[in-house]
């Protein structure tokens, strides 16, 4: 909790499309109500790069590379409550559609075999995180406290969910708020 009694919230997009973050912003002016109770810590919205002690961590996206694993574990260590936000965090989503393919063959197909790429090479800059052989939902890597499915979950749903968490209530989802598409 911050000095003025606000809950600290950190957010990150791993193997996601930032759609869930767009949805977070889609709660429009209610984000001002939210800011009465929370303070954003590390997040694409604040551009803070390191995550400190936080009350709530929102994770968008699954885990597709070594950096995702490291960031996710850091969030788990620093956040009291960790939330899987959206389809990709919950079940791997679109990036996991590559899981039945061989990642080496994928890279070769993209960077070597396509027409016009003769003499190309698979990028190997040391700054590039190594891809995992499969994309994993985040609950397969760390313990997750809450799951918010949807591609993306609506701004309305995210607002209600966070409002419940802030007030110490256990968020409950049912039809029609709980959907997977």
């Amino acid at each position: 909790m911050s000095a003025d009694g606000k809950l600290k919230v950190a957010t990150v997009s791993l193997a996601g499309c930032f759609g869930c973050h767009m949805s977070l912003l889609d709660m429009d002016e209610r984000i001002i109500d939210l800011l009465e109770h929370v303070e954003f810590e590390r997040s694409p919205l604040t551009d803070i790069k390191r995550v400190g002690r936080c009350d709530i961590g929102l994770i968008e996206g699954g885990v597709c590379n070594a950096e995702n694993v490291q960031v996710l574990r850091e969030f788990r260590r620093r956040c009291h409550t960790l939330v899987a936000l959206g389809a990709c965090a919950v079940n791997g989503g679109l990036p996991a559609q590559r899981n039945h393919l061989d990642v080496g063959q994928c890279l070769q197909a993209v960077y070597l075999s396509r027409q016009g790429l003769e003499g190309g090479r698979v990028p190997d800059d040391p700054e590039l995180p190594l891809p995992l052989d499969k994309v994993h939902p985040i609950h397969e890597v760390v313990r997750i406290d809450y799951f918010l499915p949807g591609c993306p979950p609506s701004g309305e749903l995210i607002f209600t969910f966070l409002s419940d968490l802030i007030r110490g209530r256990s968020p409950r989802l049912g039809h029609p708020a709980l959907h997977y598409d």
Partner: protein
Amino acid sequence: MSETARFLLDGAPVPFAEGQTILEAARAAGRYIPHLCWHPDFPPHGSCKLCIVDVGGRHLSACATPAVDGATAASDTPEINAERRALLQMLFVEGNHFCPSCEKSGLCQLQAMASELGMTTPRFNHFYPDRPVDASHPDVLLDFNRCIYCELCVRASRDKDGKSVFALTNRGIHKHLVVNAESGRLGDTDFAADDVAAGICPVGVILRKRVGFAVPIGSRTYDTRPISAVSMDREEP
């Protein structure tokens, strides 16, 4: 048996006629018991186990258990619904159920059931099996990624259409849906888009081509009404 034969479902009396199953009697009395492989036009299959009810401490398939006068059955309890969620979670991780890309989204009973029962996470580790689609038929696409082995297509094609186009093969975790043709391809069978089996799939395996998005996502059957309400009116494939 007299017309006053009754059993208790979640504490409320349900009358039944002799020979009715717990699920049939409950439906006739306007009481919903979740189910996936059961369909009113077919004999009970008893494989999905979503319709389990607690009768005297034993968990029985309501679709295949005859109602008994004076019995007590529990269905809508936190314990039974948690078991149902676990069954759904196993179905979800065993196949590839990527709802955002599925043209059956909003019309899918597996998805609607997960929403009904409050499944927020697949909980188990995903299998991500490799199951290529079969687009060989001019009017119908088969996407095996979403099969839940309810055998409704198998039963419909055999018992209603008289064609036996589908079958389940192998056992346990290796069980999968196959097409009854030497090539294994739907295009090499006499399957037709107006077969009963073409419209019976509760998930997104058997898909008629060129009509997938006639109703937009967001205004579909289960987008607007929960499956517990829809199912009591009619079974929506």
